[in-house]
């Protein structure tokens, strides 16, 4: 069904005052009444999503009821900790630094990842850096096949297509990072009787850009219904430090600098916002093309890509599947 709205970038504009007021109310209700916890734990990455999530929690619960957790590891950018600290100082919240690198080393995260990379780049070893990349979705109608870009200690770089075994091996090893972080967040939540706040935005939540039982796990997700550009609007309204708002979104997971666009989304996030909004509201490909300065063919390709991602990541949203009914357990408040 197509709508007749005048489609432009303005469709994503929020009334920030009202949005913050409503979100604060919802967070208060959810944490204190539904979840029956005394506060919120937020993992801080120095990015806009975790910063806005923490700021909203402070608005809703008060700074005394929010704990920020920094969880650097070997491949983390120094900016992540520096900007996270800046955010926490601005909010006036208590924080704790948990270096997860030793735990990851013991789990074999780095060794297993490197072994998987060596399946396609045999020379890969100590001192090398790497990242996973996707082809540019706008350039042609490609299926998304992941490649790995690796850089040797002497600066030589190689790019190789990942085989299924290598791809799954790299992702499985790397997912230790998100799962270890979540384990640490829940440790602090348990000791304080707090709830864990998840930080995905709508682009990530809808298209499955998260690790199941890792960053996808949380007790509540304050910005999962907001488009990325709306998260920025709230960030500006709440007064999140400008340096955080200007920082390009990064996965902060691989040793070579890697944008979220390279790894998962393939196109600029503000463009993807409009395409996802258009698709969600039945806006025609032609109207979205006009608003985004893309061709209709490119928008159609993005619509198809969104559908494909939602379908292929459905598993990530599924709770454990029971083989028979358990009527006595009631599932509360799930959307």
């Amino acid at each position, binding site marked *: 069904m197509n709508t007749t709205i005048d489609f432009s970038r303005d469709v994503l504009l929020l009334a920030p005052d009202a949005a913050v007021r409503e979100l604060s109310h919802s967070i208060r209700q959810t944490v204190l009444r539904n979840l029956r916890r005394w506060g919120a734990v937020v993992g801080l990455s120095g990015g806009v999503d975790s910063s806005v999530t923490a700021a909203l929690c402070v608005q809703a619960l008060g700074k005394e009821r929010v704990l920020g957790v920094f969880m650097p590891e070997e491949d983390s950018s120094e900016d992540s900790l520096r900007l996270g600290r800046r955010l926490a100082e601005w909010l006036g919240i208590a924080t704790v630094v948990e270096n997860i690198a030793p735990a990851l080393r013991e789990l074999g995260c780095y060794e297993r990842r490197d072994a998987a990379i060596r399946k396609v780049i045999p020379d890969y070893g100590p001192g090398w850096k790497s990242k996973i990349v996707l082809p540019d979705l706008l350039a042609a109608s490609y299926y998304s096949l992941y490649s790995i870009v690796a850089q040797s200690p002497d600066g030589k*770089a190689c790019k*190789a297509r990942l085989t299924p075994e290598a791809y799954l091996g790299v992702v499985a090893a790397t997912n230790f990072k998100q799962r270890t972080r979540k384990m640490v967040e829940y440790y602090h939540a348990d000791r304080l009787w707090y709830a864990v706040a998840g930080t995905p935005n709508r682009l990530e939540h809808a298209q499955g850009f998260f690790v199941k039982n890792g960053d996808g796990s949380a007790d509540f997700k304050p910005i999962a219904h907001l488009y990325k550009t709306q998260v920025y609007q709230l960030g500006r309204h709440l007064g999140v430090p400008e340096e955080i708002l200007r920082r390009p979104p990064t996965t902060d997971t691989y040793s070579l600098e890697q944008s979220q666009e390279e790894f998962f989304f393939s196109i600029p996030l503000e463009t993807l916002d409009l395409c996802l909004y258009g698709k969600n509201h039945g806006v025609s490909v032609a109207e979205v093309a006009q608003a985004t300065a893309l061709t209709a063919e490119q928008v159609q390709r993005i619509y198809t890509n969104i559908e494909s991602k939602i379908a292929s990541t459905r598993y990530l949203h599924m709770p454990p599947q029971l083989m028979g009914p358990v009527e006595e357990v009631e599932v509360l408040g799930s959307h």
Partner: protein
Amino acid sequence: MGREVIMELERELRTFVVDNFLFGQADETFSNADSFLEKGLIDSMGILTLVEFVTDKYSIVVEDEEMVPENWDSVQRIASFVQKKTSANPGTSTMCFALESQSNRQ
């Protein structure tokens, strides 16, 4: 290469698709011309697996720009693509280059 070669390619590819994506349950309604996308048959991991099968079995290398539905969206299309590739330059799989635009993490 003649029609017989194409038919043999289609047979091999169909067997792989049925074994791996239909779990051996070959449906009579699944034809070699059917679109994988329209049938919802193969997701991103499926494509990755299919590409590995094709590149290993037929000793060809598939470039990014060849990863389009015209080449990969049905058994027939893959067979035709493989036939063209095996009679042409197979290409290279790993590319090394100077990282001019890739900056290291600060």
